[in-house]
């Protein structure tokens, strides 16, 4: 049979892809029917609560749980003593230690014990009856302070072989990328800018706190329901922690109330399983907002030194970045991604980045939308802007002059295929926003951003029902409309209406391994698997039609939702629609399905250019966002409204990061703003509409040309806004957030 080949896709005339149908979970979500993590209940359910360290760094001398255990209604109390010690697997051991502290409490809010009781009120009372004896230790929360010689060392012996001898034990790893000769490159410049930049830690800020319900029986089987970006990851991680076989733990993902990377690991899940095992009852756990902020992953704070050389006509001759990221109390800050992505938008002969992964007494960082990239882009794009404006050059022209294109060897090693950076820059330059007049105290900034995009293990099963509707089972939680996109791609491929396809997120017992919903991978990888599963089903349906017609299956092709003879030699047979083939499937060999399992390469890197106008209040330093436009390459926008939504959402998270959001620690190492009143994310009245321009430079690695779009949109805003505010305020802003007191102080000191 004939199938659409990958090479057809750039000129393909799509019928469903590119339209804006209503999402299948829409009604549930506007009526309150959708069930999120905290909405799950079970008969006999207990409520679990966590006791958390009030100290930033303390040795746990002893924990006495006897009084709590004696309280009526308490069914189980667990501490680290209730978990196996994990040997030879630092990655999992760190995750477990973060879920339940063993020898030391590493940060304010670190879990040290947990209880399960018949009511939340009793559970809370029980926490007060647990006595923990702490030996308080010196702490450090700042990334630059953590690498000084007299900083308290969090872990002994965790530094790896990449780190030169003699550095603080808080330096865990060193990364290096680049090519050419930096000193020679800088020597060729008309001007070399050297500047340091700092960003504060910000939280993903999903509105739904972490929640789960666990049920573990004495036979070793367990069920877990939770809000997560990857229930397969939850299964595998919990199985490793408990020494269980993965097949004995079934995890079902609830609807997820936002994640942005923050729900790509476990926090409560192992604790709930341990409490359930000990109590013999289902245990539900839900975090409070302050627990979310104190104990789940914010992103890293960063300190970056840039050396950038430019000729007076705007050519970058040499570029060096040294990046220090603290990722909280355990190894694994996203500094490697930061180091790889810092100069990724540019075609540079001499480029080098050095990254340092540093630990501090803060919560273990978790991925946050393009993890590591926004801070690096903040520094690089600020430096480019400052040099360009210093020479009186157009900052878009300077970026165009240095832009990476097809065939460019990137700073992190790969050579690019067709990419969309230049297209976003040209579109930005031609956009009316670029030439719109500005008033007093107003400025305009631009910046570019890059993200890798991932593939990853993926399984999709597509089943044809007897009445000719189609069900798609995939294994990735739908975090922003992906069930709609999968249904659209299945409908496109099968040639049937969108409404005939229903996509569900299946539990871990129903499909093989699926990578987490991360890396902007889902529309790309799960979409690819959905298309391939549909193709497998089409092949089978063509075979069934051939059987009915008594002709060779190669003589049948699939056109417009029906099997048809592939030319005059195949005989004169009326088309058999999908519904007709489905209705007789029982007589032609049984039910029809297609499935596809893969770890697809070719995710296709992504670029964006952002443009923003700001106004600074000279009396208060407050910054108002006046106008914002996102230009980003989507490869192919499957559901353009949800692509726009990703652009807008990323831009606004970036606005929060640039202007207001920060983790504020006191001298005591305690988080001072663990609530939405003081950790201030953008609200509707802070913002204008966020304009979007979708570019479509097809990704050759996807049947329809799709690239991931979710993460790139948070990469440019920090720098774009800083470049704009620097113009509005008349002083270069090199530290985030640009909150009113900081902007005012900068203006007064200029």
């Amino acid at each position, binding site marked *: 049979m004939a199938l659409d080949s990958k090479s057809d896709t750039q000129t393909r005339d799509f019928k469903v892809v590119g339209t804006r149908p209503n999402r299948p979970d829409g009604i549930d979500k506007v009526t*309150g029917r959708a069930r999120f993590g*905290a909405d799950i209940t079970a008969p006999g359910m207990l409520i679990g609560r966590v006791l958390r360290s009030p100290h930033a760094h303390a040795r746990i001398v002893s924990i006495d749980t006897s009084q709590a255990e004696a309280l009526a209604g308490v069914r189980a109390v667990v501490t680290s003593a209730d978990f196996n010690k994990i040997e030879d697997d630092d990655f999992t051991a760190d995750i477990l230690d973060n879920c339940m502290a063993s020898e030391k409490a590493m940060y304010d809010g670190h879990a040290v014990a947990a209880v399960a009781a018949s009511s939340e009120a009793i559970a809370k009372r029980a926490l007060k009856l647990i006595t923990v004896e702490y030996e308080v230790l010196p702490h450090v929360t700042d990334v630059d302070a953590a690498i000084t010689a007299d900083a308290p060392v969090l872990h002994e012996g965790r530094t790896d072989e990449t780190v030169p001898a003699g550095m603080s034990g808080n330096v865990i790893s060193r990364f290096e990328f680049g090519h050419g000769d930096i000193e020679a490159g800088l020597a060729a410049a008309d001007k070399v800018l050297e500047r340091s930049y700092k960003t504060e830690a910000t939280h*993903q800020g999903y509105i*739904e706190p972490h929640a789960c319900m666990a049920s573990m029986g004495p036979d070793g089987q367990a069920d877990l329901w939770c809000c997560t970006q990857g229930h397969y990851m939850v299964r595998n991680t919990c199985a490793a922690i408990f020494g269980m076989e993965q097949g004995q733990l079934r995890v079902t993902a609830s609807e997820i109330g936002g994640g942005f990377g923050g729900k790509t690991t476990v926090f409560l899940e192992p604790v709930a399983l341990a409490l359930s095992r000990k109590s013999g009852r289902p245990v539900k756990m839900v975090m409070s907002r302050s627990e979310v902020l104190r104990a789940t992953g914010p992103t890293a704070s960063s300190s970056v030194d840039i050396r950038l050389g430019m000729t007076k006509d705007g050519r970058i001759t040499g570029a060096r970045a040294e990046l220090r990221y603290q990722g909280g109390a355990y190894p694994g800050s996203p500094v490697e991604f930061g180091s790889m992505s810092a100069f990724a938008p540019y075609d540079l002969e001499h480029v080098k980045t050095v990254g340092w992964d540093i630990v501090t007494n803060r919560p273990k960082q978790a991925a946050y939308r393009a993890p590591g990239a926004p801070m690096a882009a903040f520094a690089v794009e600020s430096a480019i802007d400052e040099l360009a404006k210093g020479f009186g050059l157009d900052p878009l022209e300077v970026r165009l002059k240095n832009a990476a294109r097809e065939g460019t060897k990137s700073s992190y090693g790969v050579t690019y295929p067709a990419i969309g950076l230049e297209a976003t820059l040209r579109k930005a330059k031609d956009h009316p926003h670029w030439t719109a007049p500005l008033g007093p105290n107003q400025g305009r900034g631009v910046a570019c951003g890059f993200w890798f995009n991932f593939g990853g293990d993926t399984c999709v099963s597509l089943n044809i029902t007897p009445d000719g509707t189609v069900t798609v089972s995939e294994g990735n939680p739908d975090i922003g409309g992906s069930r709609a996109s999968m249904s659209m791609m299945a409908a496109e491929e099968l040639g049937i209406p969108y409404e005939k396809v229903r996509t569900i997120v299946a539990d871990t017992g129903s499909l093989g391994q699926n990578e987490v919903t991360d890396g902007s991978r889902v529309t790309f990888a799960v979409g690819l698997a959905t298309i391939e599963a549909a193709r497998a089903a089409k092949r089978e349906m063509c075979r069934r039609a051939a059987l009915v017609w008594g002709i060779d299956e190669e003589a049948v092709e699939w056109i417009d939702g029906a099997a048809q003879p592939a030319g005059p030699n195949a005989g004169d047979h009326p088309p058999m629609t999908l519904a007709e083939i489905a209705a007789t499937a029982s007589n032609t060999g049984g039910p029809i399905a297609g499935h596809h399992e893969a770890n697809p390469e070719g995710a296709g890197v992504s670029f964006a250019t952002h443009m923003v106008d700001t106004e600074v209040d000279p009396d208060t330093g407050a910054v108002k966002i006046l106008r914002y436009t996102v230009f980003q390459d989507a490869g192919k926008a499957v559901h353009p409204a949800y692509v726009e*939504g990703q652009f807008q959402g990323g831009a606004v998270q970036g606005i929060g990061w640039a202007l207001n959001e920060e983790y504020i620690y006191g001298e005591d190492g305690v988080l001072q703003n663990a609530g939405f*009143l003081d950790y201030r994310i953008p609200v509707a009245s802070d*913002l204008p509409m966020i304009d979007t321009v979708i570019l479509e430079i097809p990704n050759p690695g996807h049947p329809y040309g799709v690239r991931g779009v979710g993460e790139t949109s948070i990469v440019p805003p920090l720098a774009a806004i800083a470049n704009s505010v620097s113009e509005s305020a008349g002083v270069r802003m090199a530290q985030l957030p640009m909150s009113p007191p900081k902007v005012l102080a900068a203006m007064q000191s200029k």
Partner: protein
Amino acid sequence: MSQVHVTTTINGDPTEFLCEPDETLLDVLRDRLGMTGSKEGCGTGDCGACSVTVNGRLVCSCLVLGAEAEGAEVATIEGMSDGETLHPLQRKFIEHAALQCGICTPGLLVAAKSLLENHPDPTEEEARYWLAGNLCRCTGYDKIIRAVMDAAEEMREAS
């Protein structure tokens, strides 16, 4: 302390419940009455995910005691549609893709309904300030504001 017996009306339904004196209306709705459409995002009145109306007034149900519902008319997201017919705001939220994850959606819809009941013809700025107490982390509010303005226009034309 013993529990409080409360007689109230929720979405037009006569309802009785027992609650602790210090139990919030949100916990009563979610844990005692099984009405989990109202969400807890913060528990401190900062995010608006638990928005309901009590006697027509928009409140965060996490800041109201269950006992305060005595004799009151409470309206939640579960009562917003009329049988099979969605409220225009609900329909416009779907059509405009005004939700991504959907966790803030019930609270935003309750708050937006309250806005349009008080101000049927709001400016964009008025809508933005009215909804400033409802946090959404996914959308950047653009499509939410468009959905609200579109619903307002449709409702004005229909009335």
